[in-house]
């Protein structure tokens, strides 16, 4: 791997999560990486958080349970309106470091086809392997990808599930390394649970995934919700780390998609159109 690849402007000028806020204690700064650069972050005595590289202070934002920063000039962070609804449980459920590009991580998050094989007995079960037809489109302003009407049979869709059910999913990709997933709540059929994966590209072929939930669950402790999410992400990790190449190929001929991969195809096109080169293998010519 090259010593230090610079992020392209599209990737650089985004907000990125570096930590769950609850994991930042006052005092000693903690160090992480963003695009291969060392970034330290800390909580000041007054409770505010700051982030910096070795030679400059970085902009910060506290949102969705995370500390966000940027090496460039970021615009507005995407909205998750549900996060402010009073009766929801907002849980920063954990952080996992994965040795593969952040875009590979997002692509895996968008894929329903692996549920029965990788999350057996929880998010899927054999022989219920079919990914039924669903819709994918870009929002009119081109800022987001939305996949709707995704139906999948899940034995234990969430921490409050008591039996298997066909669960409806909606996926949003409002950011090159973040995705927000909505799934039917077992507690209230009119409302949706929100599960977000916020990717922090630590390098071209490594990322930290921060999982944030905003869900209807009046039963379980934060601790159990966190355990459930870490358990699932822990199952994905070895699959992700065995993917080759470790960066996401954007050339449509580089990998052979099937119908179930519609969202991934749209995601790859979207990254190409925005000129993403970091963490991906751009299409030639």
């Amino acid at each position: 791997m090259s010593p230090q690849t610079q992020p392209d402007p599209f990737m650089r000028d985004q907000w990125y999560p570096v930590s769950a806020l609850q994991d930042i204690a006052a005092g000693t700064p903690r160090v992480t990486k963003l695009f291969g650069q060392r970034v330290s972050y800390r909580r000041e005595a007054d409770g505010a958080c700051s982030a910096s590289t070795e030679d400059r202070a970085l902009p910060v934002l506290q949102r969705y349970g995370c500390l966000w920063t940027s090496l460039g000039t970021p615009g507005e962070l995407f909205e998750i309106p549900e996060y402010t609804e009073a009766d929801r449980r907002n849980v920063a459920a954990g952080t996992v470091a994965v040795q593969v590009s952040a875009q590979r991580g997002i692509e895996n998050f968008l894929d329903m086809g692996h549920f029965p094989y990788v999350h057996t007995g929880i998010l899927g079960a054999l022989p219920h392997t079919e990914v039924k037809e669903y819709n994918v489109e870009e929002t009119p302003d081109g800022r987001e990808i939305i996949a709707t009407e995704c139906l999948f049979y899940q034995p234990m869709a969430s921490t409050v599930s008591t039996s298997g059910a066909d669960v409806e999913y909606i996926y949003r990709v409002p950011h090159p390394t973040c995705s927000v997933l909505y799934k039917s709540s077992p507690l209230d059929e009119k409302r949706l649970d929100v599960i977000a994966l916020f990717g922090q590209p630590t390098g071209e072929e490594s990322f930290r995934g921060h999982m944030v939930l905003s869900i209807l669950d009046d039963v379980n402790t934060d601790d159990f919700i966190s355990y459930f999410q870490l358990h699932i992400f822990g199952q994905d990790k070895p699959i992700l780390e065995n993917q080759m190449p470790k960066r996401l190929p954007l050339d449509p001929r580089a990998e052979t998609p099937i119908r179930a991969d519609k969202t991934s195809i749209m995601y790859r096109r979207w990254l190409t159109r925005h000129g993403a080169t970091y963490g991906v293998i751009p299409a030639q010519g």
Partner: protein
Amino acid sequence: MPTLYDFDLSADCYKVRLLAAILGIPYDRHNVDFFPGMKHLSPAFLAVNPLGTLPVWDEGDLRLCSAHAILVYLAERHAPGGPWLPRDPALAGEVQHWLGFAEGLATSAGAARLAAGMEFDLDLAAAQARAHQLFERMDEHLWFREREGGNWLCRTLQPTLAEIACFPDVMLSEEGGIAREDYPALRRWSDRVKRIPGFEVMPGIFPAKIGA
């Protein structure tokens, strides 16, 4: 009911869950968010185990704070004289050898996994190099065992605690960047472990038959 203080992604905790599953021992699990929460260093957990290590097995009047101690206790308590901890002097010694060897796996392959996946400040390259040395020894040993008609680390007809203690850090090694392509006997052995009746997986470890 005994309580297991447990972290789902911990190889040491998985050793206990694996043996408990095989022997059919019920317990309550108490989740301790080791990473990223660092709850093993919280005052609440240090009151349970001043060493701040996981797993802990708590039966009220008995509290054991190391994975191998718990394995020995559970085997003797629930399957006394059984195959997991043989009474034969030579075989008992062999099991102890592999429990010690497993400590070496934890401080090499296990440490590499903590450095690569949980950002622990450890010497990743040194841990990986040491793990490869140990895997090579294990692979060679298992190859000779297979030549003698044996399936397991000790010269027993059935698996022992040696399997339970060594298996997790071997199977999770790729998370620490340690591939097992060069150790075919080790891979065959790990497939046999996965077929022990009652075998249970953890995140990062898949069953012998996918989807099972």
